[in-house]
């Protein structure tokens, strides 16, 4: 509770300092920059050609032009958004800098806001070239989705931050031994979030679980838009409501894990 109380006076100055820290790091390392662009580009090229191939052979996919490419780009927003958040956090663990930050006036909420901003920066570096490739290679204009894209994006990025906050808390508490969770947890959501297929293909009991995940509503909404040309505002509202709960829960869990890390002394080491 006392930690929550310290979040009242948030300093833009300290958030700016942390964003600057990650910006310096990105700009000092071309492999880091290249890595941000490399995988999304590879993804879109692979899936784009697959979509072209399927569209030539199947009337449904020919009608539902772009659903695969759209799903790939939206999935990458979700996945890269979380990675962008978590990798910036891991940089502190790898640099053994967390103790310096925790001992400074930086508050946990400021740290998390800086990580959110950096996830947007890293996402932009990876996804904007991806959308341009989709446009020039596969004639799919992602931005032609228009205003619904804002709803899709906001919901996906909120989910990615919630997962990012949660896994960062796990690494904070358990050290770098828990690092693999950062890279793999989101893939655990993939089958249930119904990225590439409608929720209806799942068994009924799994559908119930799938509808508890905010991204499911977004991917379902994307298919409704691209196949049936209908924007499902109701799906976006549900997604936002679940996201709000998920975000609050992740933040509370992060604070609990931070407190637990202080109890077991893992902030001093931060190693394996």
């Amino acid at each position, binding site marked *: 509770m*006392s930690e929550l109380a*310290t979040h009242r*006076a948030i*300093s833009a*100055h*300290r958030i*700016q*300092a*942390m964003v*600057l*820290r990650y910006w*310096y*790091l990105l700009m*000092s*390392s071309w492999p880091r920059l290249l890595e941000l662009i490399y995988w999304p580009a590879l993804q879109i090229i692979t899936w784009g050609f697959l979509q072209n191939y399927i569209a030539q052979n199947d009337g449904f996919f020919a009608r539902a032009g772009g659903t695969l490419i759209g799903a790939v780009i939206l999935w990458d927003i979700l996945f890269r958004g979380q990675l962008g958040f978590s990798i910036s956090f891991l*940089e502190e663990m790898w*640099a*053994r*800098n*967390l*103790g*310096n*930050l*925790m*001992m*400074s*006036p*930086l*508050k946990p909420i400021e740290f998390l806001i800086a990580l959110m901003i950096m996830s947007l920066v890293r996402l932009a570096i990876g996804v904007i070239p991806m959308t341009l490739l989709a446009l020039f290679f596969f004639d799919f204009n992602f931005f032609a989705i228009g205003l619904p894209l804002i709803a899709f994006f906001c919901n996906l990025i909120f989910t990615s931050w919630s997962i990012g906050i949660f896994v960062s808390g796990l690494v904070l508490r358990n050290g770098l031994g828990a690092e693999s969770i950062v890279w793999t947890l989101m893939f655990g959501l993939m089958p249930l979030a119904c990225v590439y297929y409608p929720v209806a293909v799942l068994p009924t009991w799994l559908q119930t679980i799938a509808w508890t995940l905010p991204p499911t509503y977004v991917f379902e909404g994307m298919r409704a838009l691209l196949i049936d040309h209908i924007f499902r505002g109701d799906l976006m509202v549900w997604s936002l409501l679940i996201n709000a709960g998920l975000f609050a829960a992740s933040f509370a869990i992060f604070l609990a894990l931070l*407190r637990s890390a*202080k*109890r*077991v*002394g893992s*902030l*001093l*080491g931060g190693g394996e």
Partner: protein
Amino acid sequence: MRSPPQWPNEQAEMVNSDAMPAQLAAAGPVGSAAIEVAHLIKLYKTTRAVDDVTFRIARGSVTGLLGGNGAGKTTTIAMIMGLVLPTSGRVRVLGHAMPEESAEVLGRINFESPYVDMPMRLTVRQNLTIFGRLYAVKDLAERIEQLASDLDLKDLLDRANGKLSAGQKTRVALAKALINQPELLLLDEPTASLDPDTADWVRQHLQDYRKRHDATILLASHNMLEVERLCDRVIIMKRGRIEDDDSPDQIMARYNRTTLEDVFLDVARGRMAEGTSS
């Protein structure tokens, strides 16, 4: 529910000795000291890393925390900083309860420890800029130039931290620790792995800083010469408990030794000070 531990009176603060040292009296009334620690206990599962430690440190003093590996020095300092939560006991820093009121304190203190590094890919200037902003340092560019001049870092400012030697990195870490002109400086092995010349240079700088700013310094060290030279007061820890607490001269006199190193060996090997019994 267990009642919170009370601040001990000054007579009770001396551990393992009947006499109250002048340094404790100089710490002034409860609440006015730089650091006040009362009945601090830290349990890691069944291991007692810190076992009922109580002391107060006067503002403007330099206190050395001595002890072998596993004595509880680092855990004690970490609890003072709020990086580790005590199992029980209380910590007050600059008059504020830690970690509850850490927001009131963290901008006024700083630390250096071998358990943390600064980002390796960033230049010294970038690192100091970030920490200067985190600590809301005014006229930051001037402050960085001043520190670079004081700590002989001018030629290193635009070099990546990871490309520096151990001695240079220690100076950069010290610059970070001094960036906000802290009232209280917590140092864990500040000269570990430094050559004698650099170590001496760091000690001199710490002495100068303390004089200029009337700062309080608490340092954990294995280096007895360092402690003799820098500290007004020494707290010797063993297996999580305070074994002795006094000025270096008084402690050496009590053990009938001429160096703190010999006292350290006596404590480590279980030889008692004169006038005490097991």
